[in-house]
């Protein structure tokens, strides 16, 4: 079954820097989700892929956020010109056939 591998686990960026967060749904899965979890909050939906197609990106908070999954496997979430309000844990999850989500351990981004 394997899991979901996210890297880096921790990232500290200076305001204005670009960051890239990686998600590998080990053993492959059709659907892949990105969530943002701010401190003290529940996960907030960002975007969803089915294979390489980004079917829903309605949750991306601004045009500084960009996600891709070019070969339908590994996905990258890119944040340009980071701001302090981008500080959060970014969670990646794969959708299982049972309807649930299987989450990775997350990437904690701190913008100074």
């Amino acid at each position, binding site marked *: 079954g394997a*899991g979901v591998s996210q890297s880096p686990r921790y990232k500290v960026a200076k305001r204005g820097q670009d960051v890239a967060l990686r998600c590998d749904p080990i053993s492959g899965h059709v659907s892949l989700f990105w969530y943002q979890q701010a401190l003290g*909050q529940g996960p907030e939906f960002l975007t969803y892929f089915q294979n390489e197609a980004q079917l829903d990106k309605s949750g991306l908070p601004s045009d500084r956020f960009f996600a891709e999954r070019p070969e339908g496997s590994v996905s990258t979430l890119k944040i340009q010109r980071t701001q302090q309000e981008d500080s959060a844990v970014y969670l990646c999850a794969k959708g299982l056939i049972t309807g649930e989500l*299987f989450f990775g351990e997350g990437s904690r981004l701190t913008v100074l």
Partner: protein
Amino acid sequence: AQRVTQPEKLLSVFKGAPVELKCNYSYSGSPELFWYVQYSRQRLQLLLRHISRESIKGFTADLNKGETSFHLKKPFAQEEDSAMYYCALKDNNDMRFGAGTRLTVKP
């Protein structure tokens, strides 16, 4: 729009006491509801889903469409139940989470 509300951010009980974590939802249709749990320094993981009507680690949750609730219950809490609990509602491919309740079970 779908929405999930967990009214309690914090809940503390003594070991052996019953526990109920509240979840209310708003959804125009037949909801598919889940409870996820996050133990300290672990990933967010599924606890149970309403459609399977199962009991996991002694927890159960009943969907009450009249009250639009999906409260999580356990008759006798254990210290290892201390964790963050999130109620979630699935609409097609969109899984929406509540803000979570931190449960602390005291010895």
